[in-house]
């Protein structure tokens, strides 16, 4: 089922939480709502779920207006950041809940419920925990139960609110991978909220970048990373260097006249001598940090701006950089990204 969000706005205490937000999630897609806290991404998700209502605008499920459909009838699977498992029920009963509260006429037979729940327990690989209470599980296990519980009602769309937000880094990575595989198998239309850029890039088919209740850009991970729509997206997705120093009349290389230039650290290169790079400028090495494959080098430019350059470790070794020495920095050859705005 596809989701259409059309010009949805919502005000809270005189300030916009959502401002004319429009987006489409195609059937079977996995889309990320990405933005800093307070960007309205969770509110948008809750409006789609029917847990909150928009002041203006429409929500369409498969083309049908769902504005007046109650949350109970929307058939959305919702996964909460803090799991929201029923603390007094066993894992089994948690997953069975959605099947047990169905109106009597549509309720499944007990054997059928047991069969379905057992299937879901196998899916989340927690069969042996079915009789335990949520408090006896780890964070990652709890979130898997929450996901199985949401899937039990065979939702038309799956909405996840910061699903990995409360987990530590390692569990988060594993669960992320697991969710991607799960989505590949089930193909449920899914929308998840995150403030973690890496998570959005790794998981989503498309990313919706939000800021202060407004959608900034919608695109594939590659598009938002390499062709950001505006300065905010450029700075929010990944590291970026700002060249603010301005020259009158045409500027000089990366230093333009009348505008700031944005360049990702990996698009820059360092040279010992200036070999005819017209855009090269002088800079002093301030700090060299090795982070596995890459080395981050902090430099102070001749125009008194701090910048960061990312080189491979090998390249760094060849250059034999020393702190406080002066080098030339230029754009890497063949850099194709949009690097300026």
């Amino acid at each position: 089922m596809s989701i259409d969000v059309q010009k949805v706005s919502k005000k809270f205490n005189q300030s916009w939480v959502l401002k004319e937000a429009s987006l489409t999630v195609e059937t079977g897609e996995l889309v990320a709502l990405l933005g800093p806290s307070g960007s309205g991404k969770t509110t948008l998700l809750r409006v789609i779920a029917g847990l909150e209502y928009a002041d203006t605008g429409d929500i369409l499920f498969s083309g049908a207006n769902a504005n007046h459909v109650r949350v109970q009838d929307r058939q959305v699977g919702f996964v909460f950041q803090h799991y929201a498992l029923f603390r007094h029920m066993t894992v089994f009963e948690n997953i069975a809940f959605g099947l047990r509260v169905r109106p009597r006429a549509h309720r499944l037979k007990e054997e059928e419920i047991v069969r379905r729940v057992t299937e879901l327990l196998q899916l989340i690989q927690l069969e042996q925990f079915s009789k335990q209470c949520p408090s006896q599980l780890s964070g990652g296990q709890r979130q898997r139960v929450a996901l199985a519980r949401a899937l039990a009602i065979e939702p038309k769309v799956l909405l996840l609110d910061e699903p990995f937000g409360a987990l530590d880094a390692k569990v988060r990575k594993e669960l992320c991978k697991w969710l991607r595989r799960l989505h590949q198998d089930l193909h449920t239309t899914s929308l998840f909220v995150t403030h973690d850029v890496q998570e959005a890039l790794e998981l989503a088919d498309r990313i919706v970048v939000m800021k202060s209740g407004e959608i900034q850009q919608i695109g594939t991970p590659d598009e938002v990373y390499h062709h950001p729509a505006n300065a905010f997206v450029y700075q929010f997705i990944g590291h970026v260097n700002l060249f603010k120093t301005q020259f009158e009349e045409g500027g000089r290389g990366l230093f333009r006249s009348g505008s700031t230039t944005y360049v990702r650290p990996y698009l820059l290169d360092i040279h010992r001598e200036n070999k005819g790079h017209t855009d090269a400028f002088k800079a002093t090495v301030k700090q060299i940090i090795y982070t596995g494959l890459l080395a981050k080098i902090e430099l102070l430019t001749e125009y008194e701006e701090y910048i960061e350059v990312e080189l491979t470790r090998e390249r760094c070794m060849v250059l034999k950089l020393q702190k406080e020495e002066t080098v030339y920095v230029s754009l890497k050859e063949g850099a194709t990204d949009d690097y300026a705005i």
Partner: protein
Amino acid sequence: MRTQALKAVQRDPVWVRMILIGIAFSFLAFFLGMPLVVIAINACRDGLHVYAQSLRDPDAVSAILLTLKVVAIAVPCNAIFGIAAAWLIAKFQFRGKQVLLGLIDMPFSVSPIIAGLLFVLAFGSNTLLGGWLMAHGVRVIFSSTGIVLATVFVTLPFVARELIPLMQSQGIDEEEAAMTMGASGWQVFARVTLPNIKWGLWYGITLSTARAVGEFGAVSVVSGHIRGLTNTISLHVEILYNEYNFSAAFALSSLMVLFAFGTLVVKIILEGKRST
């Protein structure tokens, strides 16, 4: 050896411990233990036969029955009100929330005698409301109706006060989750909210019951002390005592003491359950 040495460092000297524990226990023995012993001795002073006799006295029986009736009405009223008020305060944002909280706390701060007087002033036969009710055959003051009302008033905050912080700390995530899975409002309440507050609710009900049984001040003002009709146990104990009928008075008191012990046991059990 090392752990023992460590313990010695962590502990206060023996004489400090002895004095502090001694003070605590003698205080308890003097103010709680002794009166209980006095009640027990006095109740059985004239023999177990008299003890049994005074509990079988028709006026005593009617006082016991009235007390049970009052509890049976007042406590469920408070439980329902308490759940509703706590649900409202903990799960919704609205104007006047602080006012409602203040109102719920009022019975704690108003003297029970004043509370009783309020009902006399509101429902007395010479007031507008009371007169109208009398004309339609409803007697509030000097009847069990008034006693129930006064008891409801005095025990109003117990359940609500117990549930509000509990429900606030639990938040509304579980209720929202249940709703997304298709549960109706009533199903959410019965299957998610109520089981989560179960032990807190029983705890509030226990406190509320204990208070309802023991209430004297407010009930005394509205009751009119009609023997066999509008006397609760605590009122009847007072009458018996004033008539120098000590063994009967203490016999009835012992009943309340037993009840209090029962409450205490229940309370301790619930406190354990509640914290898990």
